């Protein structure tokens, strides 16, 4: 974890409201593992005031990629940055995915790991899939979005040589329906060793239920508005079960990746 106030933007790509930026930041790149994230300062002055969190989407030779969707003021400002400009980053932050989930002594060890991304949730999963494949693990990516314009990385992920199945809610590309329906189908069809997911809350809850029902280990990357990203403000908590007891746990420090079984979906009281 470190501050790099002058990470240079070396490349930029755009698909509608989705953007990819490549940032040169050798020290942070060296340390980053899949599932970790960066806190990026989108403006000086105070509008907006807080940094914005983005998962590490790719890594190569001292550079990191982030892939993001324009949601509001911060992401809009970020989308306006151009190669040659610099960005102020903190990273890598949080705990990443367990790349060996479901491999040791589990029922379907050796079967593909299913990686389920909804919309911009694909961001950290691309890095995860790439690293797992480097480790020799078989990976199948399930990539869903509302419409074909919401799965802009499909060609690239395909080109990277992996098994990829797409789903769109409106049926404009690939499987017609929710990516969770696709997951259900895939799990019925053939064995899998583990499920990793990132996306909107309702999707994650369903993924978790499906994985649990199938007896598959599952890791989910969660989100929350973050004040700092490095554990100092206690602003980003989520209800998590640890050794049987529930408590408010910091997503930025103990997450953003949690074991699906530890996440409490409905808090009582």
């Amino acid at each position: 974890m470190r501050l790099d106030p002058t990470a240079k933007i070396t490349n930029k790509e755009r698909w509608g409201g989705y953007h990819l930026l490549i940032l040169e930041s050798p020290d942070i790149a060296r340390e980053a593992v899949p599932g970790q994230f960066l806190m990026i300062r989108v403006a000086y002055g105070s509008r907006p005031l807080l940094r914005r969190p983005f998962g590490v989407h790719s890594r190569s030779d001292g550079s990191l990629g982030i892939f993001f969707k324009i949601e509001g003021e911060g992401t809009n400002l970020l989308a306006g940055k151009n190669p040659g400009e610099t960005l102020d980053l903190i990273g890598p932050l949080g705990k990443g995915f367990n790349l060996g989930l479901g491999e040791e002594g589990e029922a379907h060890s050796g079967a593909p790991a299913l990686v389920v991304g909804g919309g911009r949730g694909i961001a950290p999963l691309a890095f995860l899939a790439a690293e797992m494949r480097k480790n020799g693990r078989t990976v199948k990516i399930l990539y869903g979005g509302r419409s074909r314009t919401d799965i802009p990385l499909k060609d690239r992920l395909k080109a990277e040589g992996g098994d990829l199945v797409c789903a769109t809610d409106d049926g404009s590309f690939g499987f017609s329906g929710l990516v969770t329906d696709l997951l259900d189908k895939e799990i019925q069809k053939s064995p899998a060793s583990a499920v990793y997911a990132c996306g909107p809350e309702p999707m994650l809850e369903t993924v978790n239920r499906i994985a649990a029902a199938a007896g598959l280990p599952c890791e989910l990357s969660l989100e929350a508005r973050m004040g700092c990203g490095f554990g100092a403000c206690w602003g980003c908590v989520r209800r998590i079960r640890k050794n049987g007891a529930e408590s408010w746990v910091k997503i930025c420090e103990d997450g953003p990746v949690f074991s699906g079984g530890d996440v409490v979906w409905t808090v009582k009281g």
Partner: protein
Amino acid sequence: MTVRSAVDLSVDLGFLRLKNPVLAASGTFGYGPEFEPFLDPGRLGGFVVKGLHFDPRPGNPPPRLAETPSGLINAVGLQGVGVASFCEKTLPRLRGYKTAVIVNVCGADTEEYVRVVEYLDGHEGIAAYELNISCPNVKAGGACPAQSPAATRKVVAAVKKRSRRPVITKLSPNVTDVAAVAAAAEEAGTDAVSLVNTFLAMAVDVETRRPKVANVYGGLSGPAIRPIALRMVHQTASRVRIPVIGLGGIATASDALEFLIAGARAVQVGTAGLVDPRAALDIIDGLEEYCRRHSLQRLSEICGTIDVR
């Protein structure tokens, strides 16, 4: 070669000498170690540990944060580990820092404040206590002792009677007359006051019609509140004799100077440090540069020099 004459940034609070007037504010600096990746805590004038109750506290449900124009609403609700865990697990590490460690003391009632202080009194490595009688995130509706001179007097007097260490009383801005509350704290024996804590505030998600923080109200901090905080510090410094520590929206050396010139003896940096963890250091460097530019040998010369003719 020009020899740069040394600038003396130190400030004397009477009960405590700080190497420079810049402290990290409570609740925005974690317990301290969270900032080690970014700075040497020994460069700070000091820092205030996150608010501690006697027992561990669960805190409020999320969402706990909402952003507003130049501001941040938080409703963390003082989630924390409690004094025992702090003294056992964290304090030993803080003893290694070459800076003043101040502990922010919380309580549901006067008795709890006293219990926390008595417990901490049994452990070394703490320079002073900051009595947090002004957190808007604990009681329903945001009420706190610092909203009344009488309640303030009671807590401060009780704590001062027991504490072996200096006590800084942290005041609330959610009052008609902050200087009157400061005067009550002074009468009750506090060694200094710090102000301001956050402003009770609210934001609404107009699509869901729900408050943006689950606690309904939260505390507003950040640059948005600076001009109000500064006015309160000026009013208070004009009223009491004890040192005043100013905070609220300080993000740059110039912001810090506004408070010092208006009468603060030291300042704290809160929200700005969440955004830029090195903000306090940049402020210290900026203060030094200001002194050079204005040929001041001692920064403390400017405290309270505001010209209100």
